[in-house]
């Protein structure tokens, strides 16, 4: 049912960081510096001044007790769809940043499939203007080809100089091998990754869900895993041939995980991400015909899901990213075939990841933090936020043991298209701090 959400799209929800702030009794995990300790953090004027044991009695300023909670470097979602410009009814840069902060993220990278797409300096500038002075840092990802049409390269050098951190035609694959080859070759000059939405669309036309037993039972169009595998294999070969950096978006097929693993072993410069929904749900979820189970790539089989867990565990998949894709209720409350692909993910990623990776023993907290707060920065050539003196405070605080139920009315995204509504999760965002601001999660 549709809910009239009173979204607090107002800066009031953000607070400025007190001049002196003490984060007390936390478990501090900073994987890039091999830190995993219990202690306190002092922040003065937005900058970390002390990490260790602080005498509370002698401290003047605001104190937040973080007993039982984890402080980590600020989390990044490197695969977010903010719908601005074009579909501000579904998400704006402002509401997307709010959803990110609520979900425990301090940085998002926004994909270029807006209307118009991010293929000119003007749009990059627009996004930067709209996200200026916010708690959440927004980094645009520019289109590979003009209009995302797969025909002509965008002005990649200039777009990168203006602030694009990667290039991608996400939402669509680059179907021409020649075009992809040139994109990789050209991007190598600035060493940004080319992010591939891997789908051979000649094989997926009319597809709604994973091709297999469930699509057979439900009579829905199939999207075969091999359509993903073919493109992953092709682009790995092109990355090897050109020496450029290739990043696979939203891996969903077990076979593709294996292809990435083999490529890495050969020293090819390939990195990969997986989404929380692909490693926690399977095509079985589609049986309800709930359109919030419709996304591209689709939910796959249990064997694929297990392969993703294996890839996350052995480091083949170094990033967890949400593919946050807001859609209006009107569009999603429709016949399955007519509903658009995509689900939101910013506000459930942390809970789903801790529930399905940490509490099941697949990954340690340190490994999860690496996949959200270290590796994405590294891949995108951005400084990794650290927890050490003289560094601006860019922090994510979460409670790994808190149990909660996902409720639609708690989302701060403008959209509510989540298959996790009603799910009970263990692990909850608590607080984010960045750019002199702080935000307590309202989930």
């Amino acid at each position, binding site marked *: 049912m549709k809910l009239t959400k009173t979204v607090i799209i107002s800066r009031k929800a953000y607070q400025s960081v007190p001049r002196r702030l003490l984060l007390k009794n936390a478990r501090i995990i900073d994987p890039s510096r091999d830190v995993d300790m219990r202690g306190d953090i002092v922040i003065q004027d937005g900058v970390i001044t002390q990490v260790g044991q602080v005498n509370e009695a002698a401290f003047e300023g605001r104190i937040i007790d973080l007993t039982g909670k984890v402080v980590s470097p600020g989390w990044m979602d490197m695969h977010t769809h903010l719908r601005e410009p074009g579909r501000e009814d579904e998400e704006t840069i402002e509401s997307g940043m709010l959803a990110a902060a609520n979900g425990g993220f301090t940085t998002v990278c926004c994909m270029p499939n807006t209307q118009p797409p991010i293929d000119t300096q003007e749009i990059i500038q627009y996004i930067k203007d709209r996200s200026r002075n916010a708690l959440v840092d927004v980094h645009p990802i520019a289109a590979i080809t003009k209009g995302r049409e797969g025909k002509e390269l965008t002005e990649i050098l200039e777009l990168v100089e203006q602030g694009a951190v990667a290039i991608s035609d996400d939402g669509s694959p680059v179907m021409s091998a020649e075009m992809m080859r040139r994109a990789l070759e050209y991007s190598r000059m600035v060493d940004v990754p080319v992010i591939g939405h891997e789908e051979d669309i000649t094989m997926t036309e009319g597809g709604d869900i994973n091709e297999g037993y469930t699509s057979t039972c439900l009579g829905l169009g199939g999207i075969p895993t091999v359509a993903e595998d073919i493109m992953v294999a092709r682009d790995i070969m092109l990355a090897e041939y050109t020496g450029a950096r290739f990043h696979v978006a939203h891996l969903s097929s077990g076979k593709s995980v294996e292809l990435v693993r083999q490529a890495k072993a050969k020293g090819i410069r390939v990195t990969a991400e997986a989404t929380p929904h692909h490693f926690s749900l399977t095509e079985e979820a589609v049986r309800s*015909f709930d359109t919030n189970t419709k996304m591209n790539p689709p939910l796959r089989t249990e064997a694929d899901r297990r392969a993703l867990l294996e890839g996350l565990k052995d480091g083949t998949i170094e990033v967890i990213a949400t593919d946050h894709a807001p859609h209006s209720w009107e569009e999603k409350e429709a016949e399955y075939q007519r509903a658009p692909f995509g689900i939101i993910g910013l506000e459930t990623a942390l809970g789903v990841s801790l529930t399905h990776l940490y509490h099941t023993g697949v990954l340690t907290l340190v490994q999860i933090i690496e996949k959200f707060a270290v590796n994405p920065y590294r891949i995108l050539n951005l400084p990794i936020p650290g927890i050490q003196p003289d560094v601006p405070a860019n922090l994510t605080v979460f409670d790994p043991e808190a149990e909660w139920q996902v409720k639609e009315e708690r989302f701060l995204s403008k959209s509510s298209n989540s298959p996790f509504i009603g799910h009970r999760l263990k692990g909850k965002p608590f607080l984010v701090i960045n750019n002199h601001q702080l935000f307590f999660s309202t989930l």
Partner: protein
Amino acid sequence: MRLDRKHLLGMDGVTREEITTILNTARSFREILERPIKRVPTLQGKTVVNLFFEPSTRTRISFELAEKRLSADIINFTAAASSVKKGETLIDTVRNIEAMKIDMVVVRHSSPGAPHLLTRVVDANVINAGDGGHEHPTQALLDMMTIREKLGRLQDITVALVGDISHSRVAMSNIYGLRTMGARVLVCGPSTLIPKDIERLGVEVYYNVDEVIPQADVLNILRLQLERQRQGLFPSLREYHNYFGITRERLEKATRTLLIMHPGPMNRGVEISSDVADSEHSVILEQVTYGVAVRMAVLYLLAGGKSEIN
């Protein structure tokens, strides 16, 4: 026996007892259809909407006749899904109709799951009259009734479904229903028209009709959608007919009297030759008669009726 369910969305999950109840009730209704006065007051005062978003003269007429025989008030809504005017969704259409206080909805739609979507927005009983390539439960029920009336049972009968299995809601519903009733089910067609992992539903897959015919008690020949050729799923009607078309010559390989069924409308000379369609083995016209009886039974039972009627 009553039917303890609100909707009939598919044969998946319908139990053996439920199927038996529906088929027994349908048999009683069939007797009523033989009487000079064919109308019973069972659904008097109830309003049924036939919501057809896809053209289907046969199924709609069959449901309408069933509803008339049960004395229901009938509203017909027919529109191609594509012509539902822009901005107005299936849901809007149904909400408008529901404001008219209806009791039952019979829905045909090109999109799998459309009937399931309706159950989330309307209070009425929903009957799936075909949703894309998903299910068509009343067709499977009438097919099963035809087999049971002709052969006396469903248990251990071998039924072969021949043709485009991939896009066939009739095939899917038949597979669920027949397997539940203990029949052996073979599917046969070009490999490009057999969907992935279909074996997991407990059927055997064949690509050669001539291997299937000697084993079968029933051939249920599915309609070939001619657009599948354009999609590159088979090369030509000629080749299809030569290798998968059911002809009198092929039927000579049968080891026992075969029942020939077809859900209609037929492409004569493609999946079935005329001499087979019109032969003594063909029960295609009986299927139409049983269709009305089965639909009366489903409407009656979902409305809360008991299987004993008079």
